[in-house]
């Protein structure tokens, strides 16, 4: 049981690292995207705020849903949904479209954030050294988010913003694929 959980945790970490990397490489360039469309700092603030506020309203609901349907299915929907949305960003031509995308992103983001935490709690529940495990997990996430932002900064010089969104999208797809491994070991482990 223990090795299974540990292995599940590793897959969650890998998956969420890919997730962090995928969303992180485009994150610094939202502002450029918004400026390209003709917005400014205020629109950037609104777009980012919409994302956060929308997820704020949905976190509780998704948390309950994950109690009912399981964490990984929701995490899967979250990452694949975001992968799909990233494919739409290069097509956005107005601020309103970006706002709509950000609201949808907020929904998938809420799924991901809440379920990630819940799953992390499940997988470390009753385990010795829980804090240490979560600390190690968080180290990975923090590391990848740093790498993502740095990589994004370098890559934007060579590629267009659109390509960055496509690359981010592919990483989000990969994040979901990695989650499929969790389902196998983690939840069975839990069931056992």
């Amino acid at each position, binding site marked *: 049981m223990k090795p299974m959980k540990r292995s599940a945790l590793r897959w969650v970490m890998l998956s969420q690292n890919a997730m962090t990397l995928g969303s992180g490489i485009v994150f610094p360039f939202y502002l450029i995207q918004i*400026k*390209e*469309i*003709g*917005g*400014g*700092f*205020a*629109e950037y603030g609104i777009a980012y705020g919409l994302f956060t506020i929308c997820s704020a309203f949905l976190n509780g609901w998704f948390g309950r849903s994950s109690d009912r349907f399981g964490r*990984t*299915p929701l995490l899967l929907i979250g990452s*694949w949904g975001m*992968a*799909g949305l990233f*494919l*739409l960003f*290069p*097509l956005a*031509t107005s601020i309103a479209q970006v706002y709509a995308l950000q609201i949808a992103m907020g929904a998938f983001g809420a799924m991901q954030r809440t379920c990630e935490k819940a799953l992390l709690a499940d997988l470390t529940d009753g385990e010795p050294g829980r804090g240490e495990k979560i600390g190690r997990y968080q180290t990975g996430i923090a590391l990848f988010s740093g790498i993502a932002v740095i990589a994004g900064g370098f890559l934007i010089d060579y590629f267009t913003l*659109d390509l960055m969104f*496509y690359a981010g*999208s592919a990483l989000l*797809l990969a994040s*979901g*694929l990695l989650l*499929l491994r969790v*389902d*196998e070991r983690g939840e069975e482990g839990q069931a056992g």
Partner: protein
Amino acid sequence: MKGRRGRLRLALAACAVYALLLSLSLHARSAQPRGEQATDVGRVVSARVDRTVTVRSADDARRAVLEAAAEGRKVSIAGTRHSMGGQTFYEGAVVLDLKRYDRILAVDEQARTVTAQAGATWADIQEAVNPLGLSVRVMQSQNLFTIGGSLSANIHGRDPSEGPLIAAVRSIRMLLADGSIVTASREERPELFRAAIGGFGVLGVILEATLELTADEVYESRTSLLSYREFPQRFEQAARSPDTGLLIARLSTAPEHFLERMYMTEFRRTGLPLASADRELKQDRAVELTRFVFGLQRKHDWGKSLSWSLQERLFRSEQGGLVTRNNAMRPESDFLDYRDAQHSDLLQEYFVPLSRYEAFVDGLRALLREEPLNVVNITVRYMPQNGESALSYTASEDRAALVLLINEKRSAARLERLERLTQRMIGLAQSLGGTYYLTYQPYATLEQFRRSYPGWTELAAAKRRYDPGSLFWNDWYGKYGSEEGGGRR
């Protein structure tokens, strides 16, 4: 989702759906018009250009120009984009960004000239010539602008003995529409020289320029407080005095003496050796404080009053201070470095004969009382007569140049009002024998433009000769310069 096979199927299905969505997205993306949004520091006008090409060599520029010609695209030219009238872009155009083409090629100490690439800024030139005891003859009050952009706008400065920039130009090297690179000066292709300087980039790419320098000197600054009525006479006296090196005045925008009180600062020649003042080029001091006070001035009437009284103190403390010409020509700070999402700092400039200065200020005050506009500050410079450029703004006589800094919300309604007001202010200047500057918002009517700039036909003739295919183009030229006039965006 149970079982290894089930998960494999799910993974494959996800990948297949994703591949479909990705190809749909790429397909839709490729069907969208290409391009990027281009604007300037004023952000009032903008256009979707095809692409921006960073120019690092003359070859880069030539390649980009020939490629654009082959694609049937127009070419616009940009430096630091401080021209606010659509001079740096055009719908679907290829924009050449000259900022990285910025080397100082030669400084001739004996002949007192500097040759620089178009993307070099006045700051670059100042750094190169300051150690030699030399100084720029004509430049704006800030040193962040490129030489190419300054030439294209035929800018002017604070030295009352100097005309616009064209007066200090020996020669320019230009890339023309056919890919050739030619020299233009008063002797060689004088019609190109006259039309390209002040021609806002519609005849070709100014690649290099050789500019005349002058000696760096030690000035003593003297500021006096005076009323706008006594100003013209005092101003002219100061401008004509051989002791005056630089001259600048300010009109109050504080509500209690709106467009009535003035400061005039004279930088007088002292004849002292350079060593008696600090020769090191100064960096801006107290930038954050200046910016803060400027912010208050922008937003509140009391801020304008506060700034006016702070300036009084500042001038008193600096009274009689020694400063080198190079340091006096450094910027206070880049006040236009202002990125508010909804508002823009917009400049406008009017040139009026000194004899009509009082009437112009009275007219302006009446107009601004009728339709209040957030005029943050107004500076006044002395412009000696000069008709060298085809689009000269002081062709007939010496003029006072009033620069208005306006803070305005970029909403459609506000800009429409600004356009109407601008046309009235231009009308006021014209009724007093004056004119306006072309570098700012493209709000003048075509009739106003043609009345103030009869030399536009000369520019159009040079355009037919040097760019018959109209390869070099921008929003401003589309509105005013082309002979059809105003027909196109």
